[in-house]
């Protein structure tokens, strides 16, 4: 089993996140898992686990969290935020984490921008797929196959 040693933990990390706009309520989390259970990303991507990310923050795993690709996978849908019984606002937490990752050099500013553009792009892709599904089944299959080709690659 993996080991986490307290001497490698950064106790300050949770306070830093809480001090960052968006991260204010992170410490209120009591790890019920509602965010994860209702998350559309988690539903398709078991690596994306909001409860786990919060846990890592609270324990002080600064490097692991800020350098992790998963914090970039949130689609910012607010599902976690509306369902949270402790008002943690995980969607905003990811925003804070992303910005901290940039400031602290775990990611560059371009990445932040590109992910935001990507969100727009993936919404467009979704729109096209839905439209194709309704109007032109063949086109839909083609588009979907192509998209799957890319994701599987």
């Amino acid at each position, binding site marked *: 089993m993996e*080991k986490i040693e307290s001497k490698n933990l950064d106790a300050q990390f949770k306070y830093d996140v809480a001090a960052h706009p968006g991260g204010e309520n992170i410490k209120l989390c*009591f790890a019920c*898992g509602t965010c994860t*259970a209702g998350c559309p990303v*988690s539903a398709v991507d078991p690596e994306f686990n909001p409860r786990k990310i919060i846990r890592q923050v609270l*324990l002080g795993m600064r490097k692991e969290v800020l350098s992790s690709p998963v914090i970039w996978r949130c689609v910012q849908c607010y599902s976690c935020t509306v369902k949270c*019984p*402790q008002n943690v606002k995980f969607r905003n937490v990811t925003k804070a984490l992303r910005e901290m990752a940039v400031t602290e050099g775990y990611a560059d500013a371009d990445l932040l921008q590109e992910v935001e553009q990507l969100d727009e792009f993936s919404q467009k892709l979704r729109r096209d797929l839905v439209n194709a599904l309704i109007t032109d089944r063949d086109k839909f299959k083609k588009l979907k196959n192509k998209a799957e080709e890319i994701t599987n690659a």
Partner: protein
Amino acid sequence: MPEGQGGIRKMIAPAKKKRSGTSEKTGAVLVIGGGIAGIQAALDLAELGQKVYLLESSPAIGGNMARLDKTFPTNDCSMCILSPKIVECGRHLNIETITWAQLEEVSGSAGNFQVKIRKRARYVDMEKCTGCGECAEVCPVTVASKFEAKIGDRKAIFRPYPQAYPNTFVIDKTGKSPCRVGCPAGININGYIALTAARKYEEALNIILETVPLPGVLGRVCDHPCELECHLGCGKEPVSICAIKRFLADYQRNNGQPKKTVKRHQQELAKVAIIGSGPAGLTAARELARKGYRPVIFEALSKPGGMLAWGIPDYRLPSDILEQEIQDVLDEGVELICNTTFGLDITLEQLRQQDFEAVILALGAQAGSKMGLEGEQLENVVDCIAFLREVNSGRKIEVGKHVTIIGGGNSAIDSARSALRLGAKQVTIVYRRSRTEMPAIPDEIETAEREGVKIFYLAAPERLSGKDGKVSSMECIRMKLGAPDESGRRRPVKIPGSEFTIETDMVIPAIGQKVILPDGDDLKGIEQTRWGTINTDPADTSTNLDGVFAIGDAVTGPQSVIKAIAQGRIAAQAIDCYLRGANFEPLVIPHREDITPEPPDAESFSRILPRQHQEELSVAESISSFDEVEHGLTQEQARTEAQRCLKCAVCSECMACVEACKAEAICQDQRDVIEQIDVGSIIVLPGFEEFLAGQKYDYGYSRYDDVVSSIQFERILSASGPFAGHVQRPSDGKTPKRIAFLQCVGSRDISCRNGYCSSVCCMYAIKEAVIAKEHLKDVDVTVFFMDMRAFGKDFDKYYERAKAEYGVKFIRARVSDINQKNGSDSLVVQYSPQSGCVAQDEFDLVVLSVGLEPMADSSALVKKLGVRLEPNGFIWSEPLNPLRTSKPGVFVGGAASGPKDIPETVTQASATASEASQLLADVRNTLTTKREFPPEIDVSNLPPRIGVFVCHCGINIGSVVDVPVTAEYAKSLPYVVYAEDNLYTCSQDAQDHIREMIAKYKLNRVVVASCSPRTHEPLFQQTLREAGLNPHLFEMANIRDQCSWVHMNQAEQATNKAKSLVRMAVAKVAPTEPLQTASLDVTPLALVIGGGLAGMTAALGIADQGFEVTLVERQKQLGGNLRNLRSTFAEPNVQAYLAHLQEHVQKHKNIAVYTGTELESIEGFVGNFQSTLKTDSKETKIEHGAIIVATGGNEHKPDEYLYGRDKRVVTQLELEDLLSRQEPLSGVNTAVFIQCVGSREEEHMYCSRVCCSTAINNALKIKELSPETEVYVLYRDIRTYGFNEQYFQTARDKGVIFVRYEADNKPKVTGRDKLKLTVREPLLDCELLLEPDLLVLSSRINPDSDNEKLAQLLKVPVNEDRFFLEAHVKLRPVEFATEGIFVAGLAHSPKSMPETIAQAKAAASKACIIISQDKFEGEAKIAKVDINRCSACGICTEVCAYKAVEVILVDERLGTKAAFVNPALCKGCGTCCAICRSGAIDVEGISNHQIDLMIKAI
């Protein structure tokens, strides 16, 4: 109300009057809330000598506990343990139960409050109602029952549950329904709708006929303004009220049901002439006939009916229907003279000469208005009145090919549709405004259009042109709508240049009707309006001519039928008053302000079916004849339609109950009453409300039928619930195979503003899961939870049993969503498992464990009381004295001040009684009363003379069992000298009668054959005492519950069984002897064992009530565990509190403190204990009446986690000590707490309850003293129940890290220079390595090591954890089964300071109940030993739960021993009799011999 009050109520004057100069206090207490808390507080206070008013807003006491199926952790039936308390409370002479009532106003201050109470109208006379339930049987209105959490129904007349006290019904009336208010005649519409829904068509029709005649006519032609008012109209189509009325009239006609004969006055009164036989005249005539007058209608035309006959064509109102309904009116005593024109054939003068004392002019508006157009005089221009009269004459008439009608009223439509039927090729209506303004009935307009009528809106005729004197075309102009005119409709304005022409060969103007008064002098001098109508006083329809009244279209101009009818009713009323020489008394017609605010069951709105439509002729069929177009609703349709009704006013005032009630208890015209009472103190115990689960949308409650709330599931489980205890899905009645429970719905959730923990849901969910498993062996039950909060006494054992024995699954996860899978009826629950991402499980039924919320109206209540709320909306109480509100003299307890379970609620209730009793100690027994009975007649040497009273119970028994035959049969039984049958044997007059019969026939034994002795035996026993008989010379035979109810369809056998039951009762009662109770003196002093928080608080509680206390403490100092505590959430400075408490105790004049003293021995029993106290070597003997055990507990010294071997490892108490020192945390970078050290493990399977809160309090203290220190709390479940949840949240917010560990994988601690701790972090699934500088162990609370020794001394039990075991874990939390001994504090189980204080006060209350009595009365039916048969084996002493039996020396000379039953302690349970091998013990009054006789009598 027969129960609770005797026939003769001899109240003797209070023993003590208010003593002069002492105080002005009032020796009475108002208890608000009739749940278990209110019941307990009321009982305690009444026993403590205070008069109690118990106020309850619902119709019966019992509260939420009455709704529960079972209770945890013993699985006792909730109702079974509650109902004896309810009965006791209801019958207590000094408790006045005021139900269905609200607090209005409070003034005054502690010791002297004035309270105003609103007693809501019950509409049932409580003195007369016997609770037989016949009314509810016949009531047609069914609404969702709040008691059944809306998965079951009740009637508008109801009692919440069968065991309710008071056992009387109440009518739920919330105002008047809007339809009824919308009806100009005020017909009781919801009444007949409700009866129609219940298939009571005849009764329904009678409701209509009570108010108006002509139901079949109205059902066809009424413009039904009622339907516009229908609440269903907002969002759905209104109930088809008019069509239902027509159905009822048609149903009667087609089925030839006998019409209800109307009671008429015996004497015929004056003659009244009515001119005109339209609906107004007919109604007035009928009403006058009903009042006893002789009405005569004069009609100018050849047949009666006015516009109904001559204005409405047959396809809408067939003439045979009208004729028959007019005949119905005439049959009520109305004379009709046709072909008599007023003013021509008969004059006003002639009428007066013919002895008519009043005249009603109901002349109608019989002339068509002129348009004033060029060409109006042309041939084939016929006004609509003349045209329709021709149509209705039955003569064959010619119409043109292109017929044009001008106007937009009903006459226009009628003319148009008639013209079609007469062969017109094209029919056009020209109307100058738009469709919205059109006055005709919208349905009629639609039908006309369907039939092919063309309507030109916003067009008006300009002139008519003709050819050969006949009309040939009509020039029209387009209009637009301008500003509204005085009628409120927008005025049409011509658009210049928009003229157009319609080719037409017949024009029918239908632009209005005029009133034509008779020519000549006849009505000369009658006032007219500027429109030519008769001017009347609208209130009473009188004209300016004496004795002349006017109604109908002649007064109002053309109006609807129902309005004409409404006026007819007023005229009849006015004439009645006029002829009696009385002032006009207006008819009682509901007004707009009476409308009920909203329908009772708004949630069901979405499920209401669409409106039913009647079948119609096809258009082709319609226009080819004058046959009726609409066919009316079928019976099924009418019922379905009636069932759509929202029952806005709940009670429909159909009066079915009035007829059904044999006791004549229904009083529909009751009003609310406001009463003032004076009290010295107010105790607020209104309880809680459950969280409305619909607020959590994601959980699907109210979207999916099979997502239910926990209280609904409680009712599903309950044998008395809507499914009779069969666990099934509400949607389809199927048995669920998989059930899920979701915890924390509306709790620990700040998104719905409830951040607190509701404390009880974990346990009730486990209980419901276990009971579900007991009901359905194979059901799969899963509980989704976050922290399992089984913190109470024996709760963890229950939790473990649920897992191990019942196989209930527990998943630690909060569910995010519940969805129904497409095409399947199972519910998908989505959650995130501990190590994993997203998971889904399917279930058939989901139970939402809803939290507890403050009462919805608590803020209003609080305002009236002047107390304040805490932030969550519960009533604020002092942190360390949870019974005190912010206002002196007003106390609070139970769930009103925060979520809590039943034992804690009951404890607090008793504690509030102690508080109030303390406040009112010097006015004790000033307002209470005692019953006085005549001296008992000595019957010992007389042969039995038995009287038997057999009850019909209305028709409850009488409709099945032949009661008179049974009574007659009883006369033939041995020793029976008198027998009779009664309608209600329990009624007040029956008690008087029984006493008379006892005296008259010298009866010395009585048998009542009726219902259950559990509810009614005390009442009859009291009657016996009032008649001078010993109450035990009585026996009941339950021929209702055990006979008529269970053999409903076997009348003959039931009668035979009733005879057998009576025979058995007679056999048993014959040899019965009078029984007396033991009456013993009481020593008014209490002994408190233990001088800690519980002991000191209890001692003060007793001493402040004015009684002496001896307080014994083993240690040299008072204080107990308190001496080691520094701060808690409730009290930041425990030592200061202790010092204050200690001083108070030591200085109290009523308390004798013995420190360094042990209890050496104890003898005696309740009221009469003798104890020996040993201080060093000195012995003190004391006598006392009661004992409180408050011996406390202690913190366990652990031997794990290096405790005792490493000084960095400390317990919580040691940490508190450390934290109180200088610089306690220097060098502590990491502090780690380990929870549940020694708790919740085999051997010690209990939660120590306070450790989570203590740890969090201390963690916060560390963060406060040294914010840099990292604090980890390693836990199994965080159990910060109730409002302590907020501190858990604060701790997280301050940065305390909580890491959960499993019981089978505990943290491991090693260390030399550095402590090293390893624990598995479950969410990351990894090992966490910590290096604590301070390791704090939350060690369990142990019971005192001497508990077992003391238990033996007191003969009271301890549980397997060696805590003292109370008499009943739910309802007797501070008492032992052995009378006179009580328990409080840690001796009972681990608890917090406020909880200990409440329990100590409750124990004080109980002890005072004993020592405040002059005499202690034992039970009458107790065990008695036959010493000749007793072998002194002693088995009886072992089985007695009350420790009432002991083996004593009975003959010193011979040394013979035998068992002895202490009459003060025996409860007559009979266990000793059952176990006695030599048959030496019998319970008096239920002896083996008597049982034998009963069996032989079968």
